[in-house]
């Protein structure tokens, strides 16, 4: 089987090319989002099956970031049959820097000049022949976006993959040429890709010098005999400089010079990174995203025009209103007016799954244990998961759009200074923001952070950025509090609370950590571009598949267990119990609930139900709502106080995330860090929920709205943050 891998700079169109080449064959289990893990798929237009591996985007083959290490090790150790080096034709200079390094490895290389369509639109051309002759590898023009030249590219790559290629270097005719040759001659019999290692040795690469101490010494003697240079004997600098010099000298005429004036990107940047407006705009964008996903009164239309619609009527048919089971039973419209897209889709999904349950109920015998298993267990559980999938996907779509368009990098640029106060870089913001979609890809994305400590801290606070699976908990609770105050404000306040606690947590960890240096922030700001529909859909599809997979395995198993526990007593051989109060789940929950007594939701007759829901949430956060539904806790039957609702929400937000996220945290953090992380999640969630419940109960006694509670807490949090950072600064001064 032939293995071809894709390598190139970030933002060069690699992911688009991968999606175009592999179609829907990409391996499941790869998380959508930033490409940090390698994704694999197959190309099937030839008789022989070809495996395509998408390596993470890198600027260099130096072992500077984990992504570079992954790519470097993959190409050197896994020995693919061919490397396709994707080069952004509109930014040839920096892209070719990586090419000059790839060429030094003993592997066939094909250079794919991407974004040729943009070049042609600007009446620019690149001398392909000159490029190909200089590098002695084939060069193919493509446009990954427009699917142009891909067949040619694969034909050439397939041909090259059958060949053997020895590494070449552009350093040969430079000042370091003799050094590289000396090292190469020594290494060529003992290691594979000797040229690559020879160059690394000349660069004084630590690992390389340790492997070949004698040779390193000889090279360093040779260096001392060379004439003085401008770099004070820093060979890393000399070699980097030689690469850029070579590219400049040979291809200067092919560099694309766009208009000197403001590009479209610059104009957008003028607004989005504006001195005063950038932060309000960012907050506004985030609010719009949440409003579109969660609001039951879209754009406040209902309030403005006073739309009042009953649960039956043609208008509801189009808005999706009134198809929620709970609403129909009570015979009145709880939701009125026009909902946001997210709520609209959710209602429709609820209608669909509700109808399916009715259908099964109508032909299965009443009272049989398997009717109960299918209708009350499996289908009701699935219903509770499916009804929120539209909102999860919508939220994820918004996050993907922000990521794809290049806005995320600007957010990092805007937020870096604020984040440095908390011991993080602006880059940590991208994984954290992805946490709003799903903690798992967010934790995987922490690979882009160079510092191990920063990665641990980021992973520790990622679940506080409420993920999509937690959203149905807020949606359910929002519906409960909707009668008391605005549902979307409640949801928004939960998200803000998560962010605030994450900030405090990061500050605490920074204060208690020794020698904590803030990692560097040298980052490209890519040009803005319209997000690509196809890529977005591939991301969404992968996400959807993942949910279905999870729902049909781990969640299904949990649902059946919960159904069993809640329908049978300890003497289960006697058949189902009539009353859930005498079930196994009830008896276990009644004991464990005392732990949650101080948090407000462990008390009362329903206390054990909230306890059980919290525990099943460890399997998957979707199960919190699923379990609650099974135990009869729905919109109309939840009778916690506002403070207890907030406390319950906070506990579920800050406690251990689902098992998938926990296992990702384990694989992504340092060994010691992971155990601290677990303890941290358990302790923090309990403490925060405790404070919220008691403070909330106190304030509720005096004040009107529960939302005021959150506002007060958030203000305290921000003040504390400034206080801590100021005090620290004062200490330094």
């Amino acid at each position, binding site marked *: 089987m032939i293995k071809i891998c894709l390598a190139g700079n970030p933002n060069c169109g690699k992911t688009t090319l991968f999606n175009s080449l592999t179609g829907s064959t990409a391996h499941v289990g790869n998380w959508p989002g930033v490409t940090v893990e390698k994704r694999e798929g197959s190309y099937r237009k030839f008789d022989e099956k070809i495996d395509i591996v998408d390596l993470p985007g890198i*600027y260099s083959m130096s072992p500077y970031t984990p992504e570079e290490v992954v790519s470097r090790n993959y190409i050197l150790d896994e020995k693919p049959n061919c490397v396709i080096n994707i080069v952004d034709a509109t930014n040839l200079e920096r892209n070719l*820097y990586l090419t000059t390094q790839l060429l030094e490895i003993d592997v066939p290389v094909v250079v794919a000049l991407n974004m040729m369509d943009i070049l042609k639109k600007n009446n620019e051309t690149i001398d392909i022949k000159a490029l190909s002759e200089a590098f002695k590898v084939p060069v193919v023009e493509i446009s990954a976006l427009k699917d142009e030249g891909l067949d040619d590219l694969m034909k050439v790559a397939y041909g090259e993959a059958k060949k053997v290629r020895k590494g070449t270097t552009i350093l040969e005719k430079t000042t370091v040429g003799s050094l590289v040759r000396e090292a190469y001659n020594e290494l060529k019999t003992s290691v594979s890709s000797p040229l690559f290692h020879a160059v690394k040795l000349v660069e004084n690469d630590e690992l390389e010098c340790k492997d070949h101490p004698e040779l390193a010494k000889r090279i360093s003697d040779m260096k001392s005999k060379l004439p003085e240079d401008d770099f004070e004997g820093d060979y890393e600098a000399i070699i980097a400089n030689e690469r850029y010099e070579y590219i400049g000298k040979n291809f200067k005429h092919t560099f694309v010079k766009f208009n000197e004036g403001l590009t479209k*990107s610059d104009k957008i940047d003028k607004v989005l990174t504006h001195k005063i407006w950038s932060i309000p705009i960012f907050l506004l964008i985030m609010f719009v995203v949440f409003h579109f996903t969660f609001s039951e009164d879209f754009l406040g239309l209902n309030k403005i025009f006073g739309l009042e619609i009953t649960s039956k009527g043609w208008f509801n048919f189009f808005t999706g209103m009134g198809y929620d089971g709970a609403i129909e039973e009570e015979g009145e419209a709880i939701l009125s007016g026009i909902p946001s897209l997210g709520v609209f889709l959710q209602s429709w999904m609820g209608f669909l799954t509700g109808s399916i349950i009715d259908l099964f109920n109508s032909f299965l015998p009443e009272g049989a244990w398997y009717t109960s298993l299918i209708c009350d267990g499996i289908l009701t559980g699935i219903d509770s998961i499916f009804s929120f999938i539209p909102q999860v996907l919508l939220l994820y779509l918004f996050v993907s759009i922000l990521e794809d368009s290049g806005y995320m990098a600007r957010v990092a640029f805007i937020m870096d200074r604020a984040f440095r106060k908390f011991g993080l870089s602006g880059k940590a913001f991208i994984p954290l923001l992805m946490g709003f979609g799903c903690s798992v890809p967010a934790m995987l994305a922490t690979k882009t952070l160079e510092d191990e400590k920063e990665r641990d801290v980021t992973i520790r606070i990622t679940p506080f950025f409420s993920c999509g699976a937690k959203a149905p908990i807020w949606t359910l609770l929002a519906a409960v509090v909707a009668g008391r105050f605005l549902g979307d404000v409640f949801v928004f306040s939960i998200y803000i609370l998560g962010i605030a606690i994450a900030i405090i947590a990061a500050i605490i960890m920074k204060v208690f950590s020794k020698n904590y240096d803030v990692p560097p922030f040298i980052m490209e700001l890519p040009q803005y571009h319209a997000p690509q529909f196809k890529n977005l859909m591939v991301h969404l599809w992968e996400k959807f598949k993942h949910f279905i997979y999870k729902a049909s395995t781990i969640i299904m198993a949990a649902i059946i267990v919960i159904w069993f526990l809640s329908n049978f007593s300890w003497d289960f051989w006697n058949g189902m119990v009539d009353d859930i109060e005498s079930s196994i789940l009830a008896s276990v929950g009644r004991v464990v609930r005392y732990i949650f007594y101080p948090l407000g939701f462990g008390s009362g007759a329903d206390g054990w139900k909230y306890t059980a829901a919290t525990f099943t949430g460890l399997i998957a956060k979707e199960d919190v709502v699923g379990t609650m539904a099974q135990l009869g806790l729905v919109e109309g039957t939840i009778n916690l106080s506002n403070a207890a609702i907030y406390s319950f929400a906070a506990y579920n937000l800050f406690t251990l995330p689902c098992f998938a996220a926990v296992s990702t945290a384990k694989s992504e953090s340092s060994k010691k860090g992971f155990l601290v992380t677990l303890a941290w999640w358990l302790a923090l969630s309990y403490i925060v929920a405790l404070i919220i419940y008691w403070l909330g109960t106190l304030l509720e006694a005096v004040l009107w709205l529960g939302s005021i509670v959150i506002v007060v807490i958030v203000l305290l949090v921000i003040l504390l943050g400034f206080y801590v950072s100021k005090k620290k600064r004062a200490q330094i001064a």
Partner: protein
Amino acid sequence: MEKLLSEFKIGEKGIVKKISADGRMKRRLFDMGVTPNTEILFRKVSPLGDPIEVSLRGYELSLRKDEAEKVLMEVQE
């Protein structure tokens, strides 16, 4: 006239003379194309005062003032 990249004003242009960073930061600067004789245009300061945005080799790069302090420039008129 020579001065540090961190002391540049918006719209100022210059040529890199010397990079005094160490280790990873140095390597990163080189990999991103900040090498001697590169022309750099100072474009923007983040709303919170740091980091800064420069353009070089046909693309936009963001770096902190701490990092820009390590880059000695020759100002171009």
